[in-house]
């Protein structure tokens, strides 16, 4: 991340500072949302929606201590809403290769199994794992972003890790 301090740089116009922030943060927000939403296209849609909202409030939010937290909070709330609306859909996306079958580097099967297992967790657990493991955020930050207490985050992370271990064992047994 590392851009929470950027705010409005001196002498830089609103749109320029927003563009700078967007370029730095958008790819990370899409990747985080692709953990929560399971689907890259949906992640891009929700990320753009969150950044449109950010742009509307940029004059104010850019003065916050952590605008990157603001946009993630909005993006995650949008993502949770999307998942609630789509709760009855068959979760075919969970079976889609999250790496698009491109084979970036090996062992492909293991990382695909891991991401598929994560995508079988509830949305909030996926957000926890995305923020904690993918973005390396401290528990206090994760708690703040998700509106939870730090103790509850630790408990939820522990439970998510246990569920993940079971899911991974199930995925690996047939091989």
């Amino acid at each position, binding site marked *: 991340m590392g851009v929470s301090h950027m705010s409005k740089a001196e002498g830089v116009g609103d749109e320029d500072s927003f563009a700078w922030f*967007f370029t730095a943060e958008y790819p990370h927000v899409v990747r985080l949302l692709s953990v929560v939403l399971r689907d890259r*296209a*949906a992640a891009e849609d929700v990320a753009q929606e969150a950044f449109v909202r950010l*742009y509307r409030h940029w004059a104010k939010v850019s003065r916050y201590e952590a605008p990157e937290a603001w946009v993630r909070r909005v993006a995650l709330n949008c993502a949770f809403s999307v998942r609630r609306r789509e709760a009855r859909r068959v979760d075919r996306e969970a079976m889609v290769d999250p790496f698009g079958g491109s084979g970036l580097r090996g062992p492909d099967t293991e990382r695909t199994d891991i991401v598929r297992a*994560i995508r079988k967790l509830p949305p909030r657990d996926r957000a926890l794992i*995305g923020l904690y493991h993918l973005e390396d955020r401290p528990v206090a930050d994760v708690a703040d972003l998700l509106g939870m207490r730090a103790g509850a985050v630790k408990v939820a992370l522990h439970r998510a*890790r246990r569920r993940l271990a079971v899911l991974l064992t199930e995925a690996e047994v047939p091989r």
Partner: protein
Amino acid sequence: MTDDMHLDARVRGALQDLPMPSEPETAQALRAVLDHRRPLPRRAAMWAPLAAAAAVVIIAVLIPLLRPDSHAGGPAPVAVSPTVLPGVEGTWWHDVSGATDASWNGRWVMTLNDRGVMALVPPSRATQVSDGAAYAVSGEQIRVNAFVNDLCSEMPAGVFGWARAGDRLMLVPISEPCPDRKDLFTGAWSKSP
């Protein structure tokens, strides 16, 4: 290394390999956001093609009725394909009646500029106003996100079928989860001089 630490390392490694948007994709997304454009729907619902087809049929039936020179008993007018008609840009109005919120009843004026920005002027008594909106036309469909910050908060943009006939613009809902926005936009709009 404990089992937990090993699992954490595997999870971290797998997640960090997830692809991120490329620089060109990010630049394209930035342009869309700066234009206040909402992304075009990539994950169309399975029924969307059927709804779109139904909208086209409805438009094809209704457009002749909207023509100023249409009259009962005259020769049957030929339905004009929406794709060859002029665009949606311009200033349009229509009168709303029977709205749930009575303050919405009255004349609404909608301006669609050529950069995807929609401005809505509600009746003077209206208590809910849009703080600016975006629209995007894709073939015979128009996507609008008006009231996304209040009445239609947390809802995806609405998708309408559109067609023009002279100084009339017809909007038919295809996928519109927001009831207020659906009621407002659906119907025939007249071109302002």
